[in-house]
């Protein structure tokens, strides 16, 4: 049973097909990097997978169940464009809030543990409003990993991160892969993302034009996929 699967997936904005008949399967433990130009449909695909919006046609299943079920969403970690942490709450309050929402037995302890893993234990009771950009990003990463999700959906995770946050995220992702979790991330052929990826996919104007193992050539020359599979 594959970790993430889509069958004949369509998504319309009015009459405009943002996603056209997208079908794919991602096995557990794989790390799929989805490439594509802006507006190709990467973010739309990730939003549907993370249950933020519904597919117009076709189906999406995560760990065998529909993406919008509460049980499924308990094992999905989402890191979107926005860092999604509350400015008026402290670091520990933010993590405890999401811990409780995700139904963890001991939200306080898990939150403390993840503050340490992302190097934020010294600002445990500081308001996020006073945090630097890097600290907020690391808190967002902690929020995404808090409930040890078996599937991670990341929307261009490395784009706006500072170096330290990139390092933290890469270690966590490597650790997650080692533990057999599944990662699906959209990216702009950034080296950090491609390095981790076991598979690569290309979305071009709403269609999944390529899905296969990430080869060495792709890593060496990030434009390779676009030239071979992307339309002019």
């Amino acid at each position, binding site marked *: 049973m594959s970790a993430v699967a889509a069958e004949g997936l369509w998504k319309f904005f009015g009459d405009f097909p943002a996603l056209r008949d997208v079908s794919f399967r991602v096995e557990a433990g794989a790390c799929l990097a989805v490439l594509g130009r802006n507006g190709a449909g990467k973010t739309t695909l990730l939003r549907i997978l993370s249950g933020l919006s519904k597919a117009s046609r076709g189906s999406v299943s995560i760990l065998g169940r529909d993406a919008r079920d509460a049980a499924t969403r308990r094992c999905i970690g989402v890191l979107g464009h926005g860092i999604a*942490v509350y400015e008026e709450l402290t670091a520990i309050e933010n993590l405890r809030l999401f811990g409780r929402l995700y139904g963890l037995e001991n939200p306080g302890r898990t939150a403390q543990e993840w503050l340490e893993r992302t190097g934020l234990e010294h600002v445990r009771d500081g308001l996020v409003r006073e945090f630097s950009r890097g600290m907020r990003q690391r808190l967002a990463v902690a929020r995404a990993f808090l409930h040890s999700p078996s599937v991670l959906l990341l929307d261009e995770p490395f784009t706006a991160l500072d170096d330290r946050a990139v390092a933290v995220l890469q270690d966590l992702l490597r650790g997650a892969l080692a533990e057999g979790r599944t990662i699906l991330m959209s990216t702009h052929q950034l080296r950090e993302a491609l390095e981790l990826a076991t598979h690569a996919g290309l979305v071009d104007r709403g269609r999944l034009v390529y899905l296969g193992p990430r080869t060495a050539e792709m890593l060496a020359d990030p434009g390779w996929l676009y030239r071979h599979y992307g339309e002019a």
Partner: protein
Amino acid sequence: MRFLRQCLTIAVKDLRSELRSKEAINASLSFALVILLLFSFAFDPTAEHTREISGGLLWLVFAFAGALILNRSFSRELTNDCLEALIAAPISGSALFLGKALANMLLLLAVEMICLPVFGVFYNARWTGQFPTLLSVTVLATWGLTVIGTMFSALTVNLRLRELMLPALVYPMMIPALMAAMQLTTLLIAGEPIAGEQLVWLRLLIGFDIIFTALALALAETVLVG
């Protein structure tokens, strides 16, 4: 059971971040007090004159001041795209809606309980006469306003012109609740019991609350998730 716990988590989160920043509650409170002051210039509050307009005046103040809190309920989630994280979390749309409505309700009631004594002083109206009934009518009516206000805050959350549109959308919808509240409050402050023909307003208020709460819970998921 999980549904209620999740609602409370959301409500506590909203109340904590509101009480820490106090943006909406300060604005709402000062707005209410200013209107109370201005109304006293609009019609000079002689004793028996205030008796007729007390309900109308109070609930106009509550509706306008309350809107400042209600409009913020979902727009406060826009900084850092927190709404996306809440919708992606394993919490149903209706639990999220109910949690926010509960938080709004408490904030609105706080503003109202501060305005009542001030109103009593400004217009020397004896509002403590039938306070338990007055309180229950206020809670019922405030819940009606909260459900409509919170729902429309969700409906218009990602619109640029949100602040301009909300009054025009929300107030016509609140008319039944506001009318009932005004009639009942005027009666209570005048010291008369709610009896006989006036009971119809109480039934309307309860009906309004039940219908719109059910409708809002049923449609919250559709509004929040694509």
